[in-house]
């Protein structure tokens, strides 16, 4: 029997009901206490104290349990001191935007963070799914090793399988579908085919939206079946996917109708020369397949004839190159003719839609030059360097869209001059974008912009109004300095 069992029994029952025997303690200690005790409680408390001290002093170390396997050696290099300090400072500030950016930079250099920071990274990876791949890469071999030991981190190692599709939550299934679509586009269609009608309408819509990327030949048959969906938004999404799928039956119907309406003719111009003119025929009504999928039956715009509306709305879903070829001209000339056509003057938005749907950079350049109001979707049709040139203009008209475009460009650096133009604009419109947006903008600045920002602060510093803008410029300078130090 252990020394402490009778003591615990007496404590729980109370000394009124039970008292340990004097012989409990060794070396006659119990008897000595009993002989000199003033009452039962006095004897019990002394016995307890001595028993506990005796146990504490006399216990031996235990034979050990199972050793922890050693962490395998790290193959990649550790981030150098300055990068580590920047990363740890950002982690301590819990700044997820900067963490995502600088984690990506470190991973791109094939580096990992020193091991003592790995538990913090793994905790963040559990909380923030979006950052997970970057954080796990930055955690390196130590991270993988720790995930194998700590049950809380074990799910980080798990590779999703079709079991997620069968039994996961809606967000998990959506995430899995995106992953499968990126790796095996046709497999995504296989997953959707089985039981798609049983999903709720919102989920059916979300699943269809995944199919806008990594398109494949198997998409059309599935989408054709989905045209009969009982949910209007789902049906419209399927229609959109088919309309923008070159070669699909629906897309071919759009092209055929556009060709039936339009013709390019050469006409005498100023008596001595000839020029091409676009003619759009009247009276050819759109087929049911087109009016069922979004083409207006009559013009909804005052002063704009039906046949112009039919043509423009159809062109939105007609690949520019295919239409130009069918009309025996080239895409650039066709666009010029459409821009010059008076009947299409108020319908140019559909030309923009065509450039976006079929990612036609040539049309987009001309449409922007023609003064079409810029948005992020238009910008993303162009190559990255061209987007940089136009971003300042977008920032001035639509700050949030410009910021979204910068993020989608993976923060491709602008020039110092471009950075200066952003500051000049925001100086007068400091609340045009949010505090987070200033950080995004700063991530877009080159390391050389630090001197420009320092000069701005030195010149304007204390007297500038509002102080909010000065604080934002200070924050931006901090970000740019991080970039400088990170690349040093």
């Amino acid at each position, binding site marked *: 029997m252990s020394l402490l069992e009778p003591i*615990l029994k007496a404590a729980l*029952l109370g000394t009124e009901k039970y008292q340990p025997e004097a012989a409990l303690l060794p070396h006659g200690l119990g008897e000595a206490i009993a002989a000199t005790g003033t009452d039962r409680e006095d004897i019990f408390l002394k016995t307890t104290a001595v028993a506990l001290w005796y146990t504490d*002093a006399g216990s031996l*170390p*235990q034979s*050990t349990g199972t050793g922890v396997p*050693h962490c395998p050696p790290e193959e990649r290099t550790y981030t150098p001191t300055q990068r580590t300090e920047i990363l740890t400072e950002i982690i301590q500030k819990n700044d997820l935007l900067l963490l995502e950016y600088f984690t990506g930079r470190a991973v791109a250099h094939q580096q990992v963070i020193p091991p003592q920071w790995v*538990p913090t990274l793994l905790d963040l990876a559990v909380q923030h799914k979006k950052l997970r791949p970057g954080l796990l890469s930055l955690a390196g071999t130590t991270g993988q090793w720790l995930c194998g030991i700590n049950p809380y981190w074990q799910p980080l190692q798990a590779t999703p399988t079709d079991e997620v599709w069968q039994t996961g939550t809606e967000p998990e299934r959506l995430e899995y579908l995106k992953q499968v679509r990126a790796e095996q586009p046709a497999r995504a269609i296989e997953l959707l085919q089985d039981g798609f009608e049983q999903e709720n309408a919102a989920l059916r819509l979300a699943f269809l939206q995944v199919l806008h990327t990594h398109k494949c030949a198997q998409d059309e048959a599935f989408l054709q079946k989905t045209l009969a969906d009982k949910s209007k938004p789902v049906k419209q999404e399927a229609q959109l996917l088919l309309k923008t799928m070159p070669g699909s039956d629906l897309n071919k119907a759009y092209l055929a109708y556009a060709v039936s309406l339009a013709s390019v003719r050469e006409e005498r111009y100023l008596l001595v020369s000839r020029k091409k003119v676009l003619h759009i025929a009247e009276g050819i009504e759109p087929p049911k397949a087109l009016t069922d999928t979004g083409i207006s039956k009559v013009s909804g715009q005052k002063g704009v004839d039906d046949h112009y509306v039919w043509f423009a709305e159809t062109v939105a879903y007609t690949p520019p190159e295919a239409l130009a070829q069918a009309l025996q001209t080239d895409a650039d000339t066709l666009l010029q003719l459409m821009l010059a056509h008076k009947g299409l003057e108020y319908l140019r938005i559909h030309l923009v839609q065509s450039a976006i749907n079929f990612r036609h950079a040539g049309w987009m350049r001309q449409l922007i030059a023609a003064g079409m109001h810029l948005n992020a979707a238009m910008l993303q049709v162009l190559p990255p360097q061209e987007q940089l040139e136009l971003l300042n203009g977008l920032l001035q008209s639509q700050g949030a869209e410009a910021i979204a475009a910068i993020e989608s460009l993976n923060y491709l650096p602008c020039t110092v001059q471009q950075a200066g133009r952003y500051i000049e604009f925001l100086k007068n419109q400091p609340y045009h974008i949010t505090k987070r947006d200033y950080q995004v903008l700063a991530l877009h600045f080159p390391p050389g912009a630090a001197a420009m920002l320092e000069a701005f*602060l030195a010149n304007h510093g204390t007297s500038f109004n509002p102080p909010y803008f000065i604080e934002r410029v200070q924050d931006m300078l901090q970000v740019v300095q991080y970039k400088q130090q990170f690349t040093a």
Partner: protein
Amino acid sequence: MALSKEQILALAPDDASAKAGQQLSGPAKWVSKQASPEAVWGACQGSGKTPYITFIDLTDTAFKCTCPSRKFPCKHGLGLYLLYAQQPQLFDTRGEMPLDLQQWLQKRQAKAEAKPSEKEQKPVDEAARQKRQEARQQKVEQGIAGLQVWLKDLVRGGIAQVPQQMPGIALGMAARMVDAQAPGLALQLRRMADIAYFEEGWQLHFLRAVSGLYMATLLHGQQLWANAEQQADSHQYIGYPLAKETVLQQPATSDKWLVLARKTQTEDNLTTEVAWLYGLGQQKFAQHLQFLARNQAPEVMLTAGMVLQADLVYYPGSFPLRALFRSGTQQVQQTPVFPQHPGMAGVKKSAADVLAVHPFVENIPFILTGVQLQRAKAQWLLADAQQQGLPLLNPEKDIYHLLAATGGHAFDAFVLYSHGALQVLTLFVHQQTIPL
């Protein structure tokens, strides 16, 4: 000698100050930045017209700033020190130290060098002091008598209902001990209130607290100490004050002291800082306490990994740990090298020897070498090379930090032994000092 970034951030009074300090660590924030081997100074532009002037004493870490902040060190001090630690090349070393900085440093030096006997001493009224001591003695004895009755009442009827009554009954008795001028007993009762009563094994923790208190009160009441050291232990446990000036009369131990760990706890606007020190020459441990009212500057700024040349004076006791700095401290550069430790059997033997003379000691410090983490079912252990282990008290979060930093390999550690288990406070690995 400048501190590292981690050490500087550890000086911050709270997280908000650490964050604000980091935000001020960019060069753009400082309109002037200068340095010498002894000090760093700079001017930071705030929202007002005049920049704030900040000084830092590098030899004996101290801060001074003209900003109105009541925090210590303020964000300007932290920011300037962080900037200096990370980018010393940005600081102008050619300029002369401003006059007020020179005066501040001289004043600090003079204060540090002043011996206790040289400080102005008020004449003592012996009779009044005797009367006060007798009155206090009486109050303490009355308080103890009441405490003993309370402790006996707890065990008479059985302790099964205690979890439902806690923490109220213990805190109530703690308040009575404060009134009885026995703050040490009040502290023990507050610790009793903090036991996790709804976890398995609470009964033993409770009985340890109750029986320990009872024995301490008997020891005091019946004056059962064997020598002056044990009397000092008893007085310290009860909470009799011992004047700093009296302690400083004791012989000092001069050594290079490695700061092993520093922990702070704030309750009711009072911050208690506990720093553990280790003499690299004499291999002795010491514990330094500072009690700081809100926004009060600490007398000494300590951070783990720092090495200070200093004289320490121990409080009397049979296992002396608590100590005071006799005079100023000087930061020095030294890489700690620890002697090989005999392992867990040695820990148990040393602990038994200490408990034999001072059974009330809470934590016994050790520096263990070549230890490893092991697992026995759900319990983590710290094991030595002879495959003997003791349970770890550290929370899971700490265990995984230990694993990450060591990769599962052997390491050296500063630990506290308490009631058969260990708590790792600092680990030494890859020539780094990593506090947990």
